[in-house]
């Protein structure tokens, strides 16, 4: 009887070890599989895409510098023409460029600092400043009839775009990230009045109130906005004669 009992006990022990071994084997295999399929491949691919995007960004800087130099030379040549007809046209062109955001702008306004706060938990991204938040804020400022807006030195014009790129944001197709400095030229009272209207941007306002996102605002006597220096083309639209 004692021998039978001892044998049963040994068999139970062996069975439990076999089951545990099989389970461990399955888990180890799954661990290796997930490591290759999910982490390495996906992250490598994303990194490659980010590198490609960075190389386009570098090219873009070089192209913009070249455009800046060419415009400067053309402007200098135009100034030397010194004929009254050209002078009238140049003044008109300059006024239009200011209206379109292609000249620097200076005036009274506000500076808004928008930055991500501390993550409340790993699953939530409510502390991040999303591209959609910036779009909503720009839309809100536009309802205050502002004269000009810039985000992290990118001048916002009617055709400006703000899109998400992972945790970064593309403003005028230029990569930028939090903290965001938003400079605005316009009626200071109207701007602050609009910004105090929580119903105008409920989602961002809630996160600012919860301190998920940090927002500071400063009224300034002088705000400087850069000129728009991105690409623009008119290939399809023609003037109706």
């Amino acid at each position, binding site marked *: 009887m004692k021998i039978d009992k001892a044998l049963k006990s040994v068999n139970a022990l062996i069975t439990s070890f076999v089951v545990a071994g099989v389970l461990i084997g399955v888990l180890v295999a799954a661990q290796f599989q997930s490591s290759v399929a999910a982490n390495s491949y996906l992250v490598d691919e994303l990194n490659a895409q980010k590198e490609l995007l960075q190389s386009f960004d570098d090219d873009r800087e070089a192209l913009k510098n070249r455009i800046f130099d060419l415009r400067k030379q053309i402007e200098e040549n135009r100034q030397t023409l010194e004929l009254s007809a050209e002078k009238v046209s140049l003044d008109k062109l300059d006024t239009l460029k200011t209206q379109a955001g292609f000249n620097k702008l200076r005036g009274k306004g506000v500076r808004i600092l928008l930055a991500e706060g501390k993550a409340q938990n790993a699953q939530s991204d409510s502390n991040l400043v999303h591209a959609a938040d910036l779009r909503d804020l720009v839309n809100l400022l*536009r309802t205050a009839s502002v004269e000009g807006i810039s985000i992290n030195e990118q001048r916002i014009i009617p*055709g400006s775009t703000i*899109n998400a790129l*992972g945790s970064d944001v593309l403003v005028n197709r230029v990569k930028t990230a939090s903290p965001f400095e938003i400079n605005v030229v316009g009626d200071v009272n109207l701007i602050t009045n609009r910004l105090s209207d929580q119903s105008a941007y409920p989602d961002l306002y809630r996160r600012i109130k919860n301190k998920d996102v940090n927002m500071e605002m400063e009224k300034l006597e002088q705000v400087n906005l850069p000129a728009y220096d991105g690409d623009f083309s008119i290939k399809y639209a023609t003037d*109706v004669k």
Partner: protein
Amino acid sequence: MSNNWRRTTWLIATGLLMGALFSFQSKSVTQANNNYNRESRSSIFKEIQIVKKSNQNLSEQISDLEKELVASTDKEKALENINNDIVRMEILTGQRDITGPGVKVEVNGEMEALWFVDMVNELYSAGAEAISVNGIRLVQGSLGFDTIPNGQILLTGEILQAPYTFEAIGDKNVLKNSLNQSGGIIERIIKTNPEYQIQVEDQDKLTIEAKKAD
């Protein structure tokens, strides 16, 4: 006693090992999901296309400016270029009626301001050169979609009534494909508001009127 102690030790060690492996496994799957959700491949691919296209536009701009620079010392040609620039700037600032190919989007449903903002952003991202909403040309000073207390949308002092019509001049195929792509703006609006009816039509010729005088 000794056997029991050894068995218990083995079982505890096995349990610990299994727990650790469960934990690692769960963490790696969560991490992979986070990476995937936060940096969707379709999104980064789309952004690469946008930046690439933008660089092409800049290169074309350089080519035009180089020609303009050569002409800028010749008075006649310089004046012609200045006048061309004036026309372009008048188009950009909405001072001229313009025409060209593009898309017309009609949304039937009480749309929130955020969708107007996203739709306009999507159209400009796809290369729209001019946009109007219910006939109002979007230019500096007429761009903010304001929600009034009863939920209606105000644009440049006018209340917008459904159906909302967006007209955009640009490459009609690029515009249409961008709007209709999987995960694109139309799909996102419909997913959030299944009751909306949205029609996207490409147009060979659209006319967008100049902005109304202030």
